[in-house]
């Protein structure tokens, strides 16, 4: 009796911990192989249920391909890991929509099919937008739409501080504008510098705007960008809580009407109209003027590898249906994204002229995993956001933070 109790207590004591570390064995059912007429579909849009326009579009694309689509929506950050686990269990979905920087990781894992192998044409897609999904010259997904970052500004705040938004052309003029706003008793700029991928995403336009190089974080160019952010925070031109801001909380700060500028994405346009003050959009300036290249955001439709290759035919039909110009137009209007094809873009701009600066911004945007960076990007990105956090919180200087980041990224690749 004593023994069993002891044993059970011991198991219970250590099992209290396994909850957080147990990685394997998700409880999802294995339904994909059973019914031939049912195709599984995963996306990162939990905000849309079956009755939404997106939900209906997915269902109708299934019907057109002669199958029933079973759609499951996951949280974006969850989806990549869910996909890896599902593939490990041989239970990957037939069609999956994933965030673009995840594509190269999934390709590395051998989960995704080349688009050409399943017979999907990607020629109409703009090259910089599909870049994030291209590994060794072959695209592994079709972008459903693209978004990128720009600066939203509050017209009332700028007017009160006598700042002309057209005068913001480079970093110096932007910093000067922020100082004027602060002197007028309002707050300068808000962005997200959180210690996750979002933080790197938001930092990249400044990093690239200073001609920073992701493979050489410490070459001095990136340091200028990090110093710019650090100075803003230490001079009170940007709030200290950017360190904890997600892009959503950063938007909520901007929406209070106290801030002159907010760095945020295309997807906030719908909210901007509800903000209750007149706003405008300018592209993020490069260090010495001109528009800085911003990273592309947005999801890719992919076709994960299946044991039964006969399934690809219907999957490909579903993908083609979802990425046809008319579908893209509808989807990207709902998501407030920029369409990835020229035709759909021009239709979008005709319907909503406000999208014009965003279409221009997307045209100059860069994929994070593009230029052959692939799965090296996640490693570099993690070091980059760590460096940003270290410098902005006052712990380290921008130079030593980036030097440490470069060293850690190199060590990891070895």
């Amino acid at each position, binding site marked *: 009796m004593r023994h069993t109790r002891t044993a059970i207590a011991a198991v219970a004591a250590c099992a209290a911990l396994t909850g957080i570390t147990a990685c394997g*064995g998700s409880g999802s059912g294995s339904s994909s192989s059973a019914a031939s007429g049912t195709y599984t579909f995963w996306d990162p849009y939990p905000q849309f249920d079956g009755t939404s326009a997106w939900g209906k579009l997915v269902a109708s694309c299934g019907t057109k391909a002669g199958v029933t689509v079973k759609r499951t929506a996951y949280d974006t950050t969850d989806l990549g890991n869910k996909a890896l686990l599902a593939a490990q269990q041989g239970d990957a979905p037939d069609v999956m929509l994933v965030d673009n920087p995840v594509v190269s990781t999934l390709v590395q894992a051998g989960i995704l099919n080349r688009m050409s192998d399943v017979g999907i044409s990607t020629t109409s897609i703009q090259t910089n937008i599909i870049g994030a999904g291209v590994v060794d010259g072959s695209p592994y997904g079709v972008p459903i739409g693209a978004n990128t970052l720009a600066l939203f500004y509050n017209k009332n705040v700028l007017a009160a501080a006598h700042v002309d938004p057209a005068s913001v052309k480079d970093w110096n003029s932007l910093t000067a504008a922020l100082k004027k706003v602060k002197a007028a008793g309002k707050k300068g700029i808000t962005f997200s510098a959180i210690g996750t991928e979002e933080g790197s995403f938001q930092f990249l336009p400044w990093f690239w705007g200073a001609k920073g190089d992701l493979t050489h974080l410490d070459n001095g160019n990136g340091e200028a960008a990090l110093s710019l952010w650090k100075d803003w925070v230490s001079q009170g031109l940007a709030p200290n*809580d950017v360190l904890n801001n997600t892009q959503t909380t950063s938007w909520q700060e901007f929406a209070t009407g106290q801030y002159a500028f907010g760095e945020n994405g295309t997807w906030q346009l719908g909210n901007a109209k509800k903000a209750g003050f007149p706003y405008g959009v300018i592209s993020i300036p490069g260090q010495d003027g001109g528009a800085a290249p911003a990273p592309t955001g947005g999801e890719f439709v992919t076709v994960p590898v299946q044991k039964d290759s006969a399934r690809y035919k219907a999957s490909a039909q579903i993908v083609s249906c979802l990425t046809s110009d008319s579908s893209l137009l509808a989807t990207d209007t709902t998501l407030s994204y920029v369409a990835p094809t020229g035709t759909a873009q021009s239709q979008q701009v005709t319907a909503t002229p406000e999208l014009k600066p965003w279409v221009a911004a997307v045209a100059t945007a860069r994929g994070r995993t593009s230029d052959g960076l692939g799965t090296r990007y996640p490693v570099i990105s993690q070091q980059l956001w760590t460096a940003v956090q270290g410098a902005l*919180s006052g712990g380290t200087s921008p130079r030593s933070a980036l030097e440490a980041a470069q060293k850690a990224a190199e060590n990891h690749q070895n």
Partner: protein
Amino acid sequence: MTTAHADGLQRPPAVPGTTHEDSRPAPGDPPRGRRGRDRRTRLAAWAFLAPVVIYLGVFYAYPLYRNVDLSVRHYTVRSFVQGGAPFSGWDNFRQVVHDPTFATALRNTMVFTVVSIVFQYAIGLALAVFFNRGFRLAPTLRALFLIPWLLPLIVSASTWSWMLNSESGVVNYVLHLIGVGKVDWLTSPSWALTSVIVANIWIGIPFNLVILYSGLQNIPAELYEAAALDGASTWQQFRRITFPLLRPVSAITLLLGLIYTLKVFDLIWIMTRGGPGDSSSTLATWSYRLGFGSLLPEFGPGAAVGNILILIALLFGLLYIRVQRRQAA
């Protein structure tokens, strides 16, 4: 044993004379069918045991095995999916231990755990003694103190992070009202750990309160009456009666609290993500960050950190069992 007992209960009282041959052999008769019944009993015993064994196997043993397996192999995303990750022995552990984050995370885990427990216990005990007086509103107030325990962690953690926000948080607002400058609770390396500890103490107090309160109820009131007759002061009563008699309960509370606190993850993750930098990372958050925090998961090192954490907890678990055994003796 249990089955035989239940069997006996269900039967009507045996009437003398009507002998059930198979079930009630008269003393001295050869034990006919004894072996068959034995086997049935054993089978039944296993059947009763099976749910627990299966449950432990599926939900504890297998995940634990997988975790150990993950930590001793070199997993890439490819080998995670396709299989065939090479055995790498202690490599993951070596990598983790030599990582600059390791020392920080270990120190933070220790500070987080010890400080949390000391305050949770002290405040919990003070409140338990307070409520033990049994004044009129005591049950209501005690119930109110349980709220932190009842709230989902995501709610309390988000609320704390709003309250501690440097720009718009209510804490900084109050500080501003009394003329103190703003403090970057969650975003300064020197405050982040303190902030999560404060939140964790708040969450842990009810647990300590409940257990210690029930312990206090078991101390006979006569002891206090006798002490009062001998002229002992309240403080002396606490020191000489309450505290010593509460020692067994205290030991259990502290050790359980230790195991719970070591693994706290959600609270820290929601409030600071272990940041800024590593300044509020513990082994638990670091393990998660390695495994799931970036786009390219590092399952091996993540599992290694998890295993180190399990070992630490196991150490305290064994200590707990020892204490429990000594108390039972």
